Structures are given as C-alpha cells and as structure tokens.
C-alpha cells in the first residue's frame, strides 16, 4: 500500500517510469473491472488509457483518504459510467429489484461443482452490470464493502444489497442450468 503511495508521489513529480510501473501493476485488473460494466472490449481499452492519463494529471491531488486502489477504481468507475451514459444509457437504468425467490439452502452446495465452471462463467456474464461490478470488486479485488461504496459512490447498504442480488441471480441462473431438480416450480 505504502509502495503505491510512493509511486503516486513519483508520478506527481513527473516520473514517467513510475507511471509505467503503476500501469503494469494495475492495468489488467482495471481492464477486467471496466469490462464488468462495459461490454465493448475496444472501449474498455480506451477507458483504461483515460484512467491512467487522469492518474498522470491528478496524482498530486490524491489525499490518502482512501487506499490508492480504491481511488484508482473510483476513477475507472466514473469514467465507465460517464461513457455508458453517453453511448448506452439503457445499461444504466436503475436496478429493477426482481422478485427474487429464496432458494432452498440445502441445494446450494450442489450448485457449483468443479465441472460447472463454464456455467458459472456464463451466469456471471448475465448479471446486471452494477451487480457484476460489485461482485468483481468483492471476490476478485477482495475489497471491503466500505471501499466498494467509495469506488461506486453509493451507500454501503446499497453495496451489500447489490452483492446480495448478484448472489441470488447467480443461484437462479445456476439452478436453471442445472435442470429441473433444483428449480422452484
């Protein structure tokens, strides 16, 4: 963490080498996160570039109120939402709270088996962008819900709710793929 701050100081002082190091450290993670909201990989690559340009320009403004990674992912989130607002406003429609059924807890352990990895991937791809982004930050970036709230600029409870809905949607999708035995009929 402190290492990140030191690199950011160097970037603020104009070190392109430090920016390259910072880029190599975060680029693929950032791209992955942006892709969780932005379906077009071409645009996602553009956004990665924009994020690092902003880091270059605003490194001196980082105030250490949050972790560097939280600050960085916030920039990525805002840029992605901004781009989506301009190009795909329908993707940003407020989350409709589905009537999510509670699942039979006994069946849950059966839902994810090693051989179902492809099904998990498919189901992740069907999540709403907001839900998927929170799940990525929770499980891939292993961020706390407080940090995620900072990144996506929403209340902590909203983060928990989105994650809850992401989990429920995953269960429903996996149950559907698993066949009649696990579905609620």
């Amino acid at each position, binding site marked *: 963490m402190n290492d990140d701050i030191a690199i950011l100081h160097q970037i603020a002082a104009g070190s*392109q080498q430090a*920016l*390259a190091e910072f*880029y*190599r450290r975060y*680029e*693929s993670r950032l*791209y*992955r996160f942006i*892709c969780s909201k932005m379906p077009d*990989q*071409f*645009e*996602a*690559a*553009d956004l*990665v*570039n*924009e994020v*690092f*340009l902003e880091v*270059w*320009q605003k490194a001196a403004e980082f105030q250490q109120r949050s972790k560097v990674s939280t600050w960085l992912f916030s920039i990525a989130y805002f840029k992605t939402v901004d781009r989506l607002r301009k190009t795909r406003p329908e993707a940003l429609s407020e989350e409709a709270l589905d009537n999510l059924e509670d699942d039979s*807890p*006994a069946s*849950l*352990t059966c*839902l*994810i088996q090693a051989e179902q*990895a492809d099904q*998990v*991937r498919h189901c*992740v791809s069907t999540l709403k962008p907001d839900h998927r982004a929170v*799940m*990525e930050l*929770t*499980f*891939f970036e*292993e*961020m*706390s*819900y407080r*940090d995620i709230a900072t990144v996506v600029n929403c209340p902590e409870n909203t983060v*928990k*709710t989105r*994650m*809850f809905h992401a*989990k429920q949607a*995953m*269960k429903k999708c996996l149950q559907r793929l698993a066949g009649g035995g696990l579905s609620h009929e």
Partner: protein
Amino acid sequence: MNESLSREQVEMLLPYYVNGTLDAAEKQQVESVLKQHPSLWDELTFLRKLQTEVQAMPAAGNSPGELGLRRLQQQLPASSQPKQISPRWRWAAVAAAFLLVVQTSVMMLTSVPGGYQQAGEQQQTPLLIITFEPQATEAEIRQLLLQNQLTIVEGPSVLGLYKLSAATEPETLLQSLQQSDLVESVQLNR
C-alpha cells in the same frame, strides 16, 4: 457495534466474511449468528465456491498491456498541456477524418454481393488490430490499406487503434504488415 445482527443482516455480510474484509467486531457477530443458523453455512459454502470461480475466471479478451502503455506514454507530454493541441494531434485528427472518408469510399466502391450478410458471419472472421507509426501519412496509410485489401471497421480509438477486416486471410497478412515501416503494432483479434 454491540447490537446483535439479524440473520438477514448477516447474510448481507457473508460475502465480506468470505473475502476477509470485515472488521473484528463484525466478524465475531457473523460467527455468532452462524452458530445459531446452520442454514447459513450453505450460503457460506456457496459464496466460497463462487469466489473461487470468479477468481479463476479469465478477463474478457486481452487487456491493452504493453501496447497500451506505449500509446499512453506518447500522450503524456500532450496531456500535461491541456489547453494546447499539438500539431501532431491536429494532423492525427485530419488524418482520421481522411481515413473515414477513405473507408466510406472503399466500402461504396467495393463490389458487394447482393443481399444481406449475417452479422454473425462477419464476427467469425478475425479482425486485425493495428496502430500506425506517428509519422505515417494519410496517403501512405491509404495505400497500405488498398494494397492489402483492408477495410477500417472501427477506430481510431483513443489509443490510436484501428480494427481492420481483410478480404483475404488475415493470418497471411499479419506477417507482411508487421514488417511494414508504417505499422507500429498489429495483432489478430482472436
């Protein structure tokens, strides 16, 4: 945080119990409620497996990587002077406009068989992702594209990337494009 949490509140916290980011008090409360509600263990197991799968998932496509870094570094001096547009970028904008015209012309002049082409079919043909050397002129780029029967499908992006479709096998074009002095980088998109 001494108030006891309900089952529902704990269920909301479980993903963060799984990823190890709860503070000590929250963690203790979650563990206490888990003891009272064995059904939550199934949720926990599900979330742990889900985390394993999410972490094992590859990213969608290739990230910009070193190519993206090179383009970023080329933009840095310009980005430090936000009010000024360097002549190079002005020229790049003019070149991009020209390329758009060329693209439109090529698409109009190329004999297209009648009827419709399915979008699904087009996607099966791999595209080339290319960046040109900054000093490459529009005329040179145009000639290169025409010589190789290449069409701009998308771009330029902020990174200066163009997606090109090829009339012939793109795999065979790859090598010759890599050797061109006008081309900074080229790769097949899947």
